[in-house]
């Protein structure tokens, strides 16, 4: 999706339109809680040199680790739900556990995993896990049986079915789920980085918020948006490589 000249223009236009809307809104709202975008971007650029870039990198690492952790568990479990028998066993757990607001389990996570980076990654990972699992499971259950028949007739065993049918057939949907997860992971950073750390964008935003420093707050939000956007772009590249057939 990036790379093409036209697409790049789309982003420039969208960015400009958002900038103008923001500016006009700020003009009418006239409140320190909504600073002008020009002020925010100036602060963003200034802060980049003063460590914002490092905070972004740290947040990126935490988000990516969390997503990888979630993926490594959610994909196998989700794909297994292709088999009705296994699905019938897993689905009730999913249905019972998914709608819990997992952030509330923070005390339990701290209890079990301490207050280090592990806890942060687990907190984000847990939330993302369920989103990927729900999507992967839905995809795995809706695979046309015809494909399975076709492969079985070639003498395939279960492993082959997962490798040649279930996984590739679910891949586009998994990538959709990943796109959603990127947003979620970054949003959850905001909570995960509010304890036992002085690094990361979540920390920055929370700090700015608590001293009502809205310019820094929005600069942090811009950094998050930028981080999310980069991860999105990375996903697009991955998708174009893996799902050429769509």
């Amino acid at each position, binding site marked *: 999706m990036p790379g093409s000249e036209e697409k790049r223009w789309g982003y420039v236009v969208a960015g400009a339109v958002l900038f103008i809307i923001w500016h006009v809104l700020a003009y009418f709202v006239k409140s320190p809680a909504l600073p002008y975008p020009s002020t925010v971007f100036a602060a963003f650029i200034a802060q980049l040199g003063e460590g914002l870039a490092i905070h972004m990198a740290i947040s990126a690492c935490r988000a990516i680790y969390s997503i990888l952790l979630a993926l490594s568990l959610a994909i196998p479990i989700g794909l297994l739900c292709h088999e009705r028998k296994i699905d019938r066993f897993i689905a009730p757990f999913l249905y019972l556990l998914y709608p819990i607001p997992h952030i509330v389990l923070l005390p339990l996570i*701290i209890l079990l995993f301490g207050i280090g980076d592990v806890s942060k990654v687990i907190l984000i990972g847990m939330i993302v896990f369920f989103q990927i699992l729900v999507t992967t499971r839905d995809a795995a259950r809706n695979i046309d049986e015809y494909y399975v028949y076709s492969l079985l007739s070639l003498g395939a065993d279960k492993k082959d079915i997962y490798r040649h049918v279930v996984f590739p057939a679910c891949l586009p949907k998994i990538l959709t789920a990943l796109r959603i997860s990127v947003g979620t992971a970054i949003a959850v950073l905001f909570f995960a980085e509010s*304890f*036992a750390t002085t690094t990361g964008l979540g*920390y920055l935003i929370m700090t700015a918020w*608590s*001293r*009502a420093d809205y310019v820094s707050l929005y600069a942090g939000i811009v950094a998050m948006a930028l981080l999310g956007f980069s991860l999105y772009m990375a996903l697009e590249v991955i998708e174009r490589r893996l799902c050429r057939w769509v």
Partner: protein
Amino acid sequence: QTEKPESVTSEKATEKVKIRIGLLPIEDTFPVTVAKEGGLFEKYGVEVEIVPFQSALERDAALQAGEIDACIADPLAVILLRNAGYDVRIVSLCLGATPEEGVFAILAAPNSSINSVKDLEGRKIAISSNTIIEYVTDIMLKSYGVENVEKVEIKQIPVRMQTLLAGQVDAATLPEPLASLAAFRGAKLVLSDAMMDRSISQTVIVFRGELVDSKPDAVNAFLKAYGEAAEKINANPESYREEFIEKARIPKDIAENYKMPHYPHPQQYPKEFYEEVHEWAVEKGLLSKEIPYEEAVVWLQ
């Protein structure tokens, strides 16, 4: 890892003890930072690690999980934690020995018709219920004879301030430094606990009971270092001002004129303060049992 210069004062076992203290970025905790950076803890033979938190909820969760050993909190939090079955104890008063050290204020919305405490009667006031904020609000209003207010629950402090400034509530109770910031941005200061005739709110230094029992020397060493840091700050507040502004997250707009608090020397948390908070908690029905002063408060020196 910080270097460990040879300590002059002690070769005792306390040297091995490491205290992890969870701190919110508020002014109450500033002496701990000063003590840490000035090497005072090492001087007294105790190793201290500062674990930063952004909200009391997560800090308390870490305390309960034993991930931190100590924190600076309000006495209500201690009472509630003990009520929930955690052995945490108040080892010293922090801020709030005198009313001037108070950090809470009730402010009215800009352009509102509220000009005195009496005008709050029947108005909407934003608080955070079952916390020290509600306690302070109750006590202050009661002593001015205001019986009836409509409490609006808003947990996050910045959101509460925002709501106040936008005029969506008539008044709000805020802690420093956001109280000063709100005033700076046009909110009207109606009442602060500094205006009271007695201290009604305090912060205290809290340790896990287990540590108090097993390593009293370390706790003592901590308090000594803390006391020395407090004295240093009180003696020459201006030289610490810049760091204070940074660590206590004083908003830029008000930093210049912000008054640094006076930090009292570590001292036993007085029983009359405790009883007032405890009584309020009982009245509110927050406790399933009495939490006696003797269990909750220790004084080691």
